[in-house]
């Protein structure tokens, strides 16, 4: 268990003065994750908010080597960097220990970058991929992605006379990544910084690929006040909308179980993007969302039990 004082003494890789919006969850995720690296890192970044706001030529906010290529291929580009590292190390041209980490938003990870991420982790590159999930294409102006929660209003799922925001459920990317049977997968939220730090440490310490899905609230897209970002995370976790858990080679451990699971409306009503759901006509949507959160939470607990039972049987 780390304490805040220790963590705050770790040198920053992402310097202050970048151009991310006030209250953006993404740089908080980046800074918390990189505290777990324990070695110099090479950072890859998919096109998106983080990339355009931290490397505006001739400036960079990164105190580490950084590479951005395009939107859908942060994992593929970083896999090339890691392959070069392996080759040059084998030839004795490089001796130092270096860690590799990619950051992509949900658009660059759940959607356009899913194939290259899947390919890279299947190939077993020794790297950590971090998705900062703010639930829409925020960089282009809040368009829906497959990570956008059901019911959310975005500019491509507007609340109209016949459509109540996004009608589809969000994709469960964390589970998809667990299905790759890789050394380490975790879901985190920056409100639970110690949980995040421990998971980041684990992700960087395993041999082979690790994936972290980090909730990264967006004040503009979610429509809440910039100072409430961490509160949004807390509500997401306490309502079990965004459970905190990890999977080591597929074996699931839920790392935080709220003592009092709050109704999902607590999370939804705090954000302008769900405001329309609270009109009487849309009550059934709130019920559907709650039922979905409940089902997924129970399923997660069941998967955890299943993992424990199979471990006991093996012992």
């Amino acid at each position, binding site marked *: 268990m780390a304490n805040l004082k220790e963590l705050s003494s770790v040198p920053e890789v992402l310097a202050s003065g970048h151009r991310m919006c006030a209250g953006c969850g993404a740089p908080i995720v980046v800074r918390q994750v990189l505290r777990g690296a324990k070695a110099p890192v*090479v950072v890859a970044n998919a096109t998106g908010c983080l990339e355009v706001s931290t490397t505006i030529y001739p400036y960079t906010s990164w105190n580490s080597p950084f590479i951005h290529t395009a939107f859908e291929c942060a994992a593929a580009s970083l896999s090339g960097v890691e392959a070069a590292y392996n080759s040059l190390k084998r030839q004795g041209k490089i001796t130092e220990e270096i860690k590799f980490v990619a950051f992509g938003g949900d658009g660059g990870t759940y959607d356009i970058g899913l194939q290259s991420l899947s390919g890279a982790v299947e190939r077993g590159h020794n790297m950590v991929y971090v998705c900062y999930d703010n639930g829409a294409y925020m960089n282009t102006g809040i368009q829906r992605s497959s990570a956008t929660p059901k019911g959310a209003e975005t500019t491509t799922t507007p609340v109209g006379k016949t459509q109540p925001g996004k009608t589809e459920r969000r994709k469960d990317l964390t589970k998809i990544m667990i299905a790759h049977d890789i050394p380490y997968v975790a879901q985190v939220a920056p409100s639970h910084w110690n949980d995040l730090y421990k998971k980041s440490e684990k992700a960087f310490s395993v041999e082979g690929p690790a994936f972290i899905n980090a909730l990264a609230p967006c004040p503009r897209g979610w429509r809440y006040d910039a100072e409430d970002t961490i509160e949004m995370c807390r509500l997401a976790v306490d309502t079990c909308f965004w459970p905190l858990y990890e999977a080591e080679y597929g074996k699931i451990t839920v790392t935080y179980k709220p003592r009092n699971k709050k109704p999902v409306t607590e999370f939804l009503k705090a954000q302008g993007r769900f405001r329309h759901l609270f009109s009487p006509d849309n009550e059934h949507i709130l019920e559907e969302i709650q039922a979905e959160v409940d089902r997924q939470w129970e399923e997660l607990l069941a998967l955890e039990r299943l993992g424990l039972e199979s471990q006991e049987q093996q012992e």
Partner: protein
Amino acid sequence: MASEQKRVAMTGNEAVANGMRQINPDVVAAYPITPQTDIVQFYSSFAADGLVHTEMVTVESEHSAMSATIGASAAGARAMTATSSQGLALMWEMLHIASGYRLPIVMPVVNRALSSPINIHCDHSDTMGALTTGWIHIYSESAQEAYDNLIQAIRIAEHPDVLLPVMVCQDGFITSHGIEIVFLLPDEVVKEFVGEYKPHTSVLDVENPIAVGPLQLQDYYTETKAQEAEAMARAKKVILEVAEEYEKISGRKYGLFEEYKMDDAERVIVVLNSTAGTTKAVVDELRAKGEKVGLLKPRVLRPFPADELVEALSSAKAVAVMDRAETFSTRGGQLFTEIRAAFYESHKRPLMRNYIFGLGGRDTTTREIHRVFKDLDADLERGQVDKLVTHLDVRE
């Protein structure tokens, strides 16, 4: 002094794979696609047998092949990939990024028609569309040329005055799968010729961190692209210098293009890659009958050697430029359009017409080449071309 060379019978793909083995890149990221697949297969065997120190990245798509190659090259590795057709099309976005980052990536391309209709055979619709991507384009008539061009490409790409990626093209199936006699240089001669790659920056240099791929808007983008264009212009001299050095180790001469029996040629065909071989046979036949015909085979299309081409073609009376790809401009193929434009300032302009030929692997034999020379003859008698663009050998 040319070195002792091994005379072997092999396909164009095998020759290229052997060239890659001798170059021994640090990273190869590749994805299979007909007719390039052999290159990846041969190379995977070399890696599996420990003949190279290459880290193989067997990616899940060509987009990722180019992305990983870019990552490896930015990390200071000598990095290569290879592709064809749809694979090159899928890489499109990343081609511009490789050149924009000034990464000296070398990529064999085995030319194949683009869908649709889906077709696995040769034409040049894949690389003709990639002429605006900032890559140096080198074309090869035979397996021998594909091999020779590949080895030279490393030196061209990595030259400090250039630092641009290079694609080395050959005709799908025709030379990639046809077996011919190839002279391979000794491994150590190639090793010495390409030398050790010494990148000036690397994202693996954690002591001196750099940011590769930052955002450049109105204030810097223009300068970056202008510098890229200047590097492309400088490449012409480097290509010729490297060719001269290569001649010393191989005895084989290369330039910006090849002129075949052009000295007093009145009727000339301009054509790329394997069809140049077919044309040479026809030129020989017609020359035996005393006809003044010749061939000009472009080797380098980027940078485009406009002045040199004008110089070489200006004493001809009638020129047929043959394009193995459509542009749908309705005013001719890419090669034709560029060569014709190069003559804009010239006072000596031969008659010039265009043939679109060999699409989707349609055989172009000596019969079709004879017809083209006959058409030029008729044009000369008429004093003008009777048709600007002709689709050769099309069923009515």
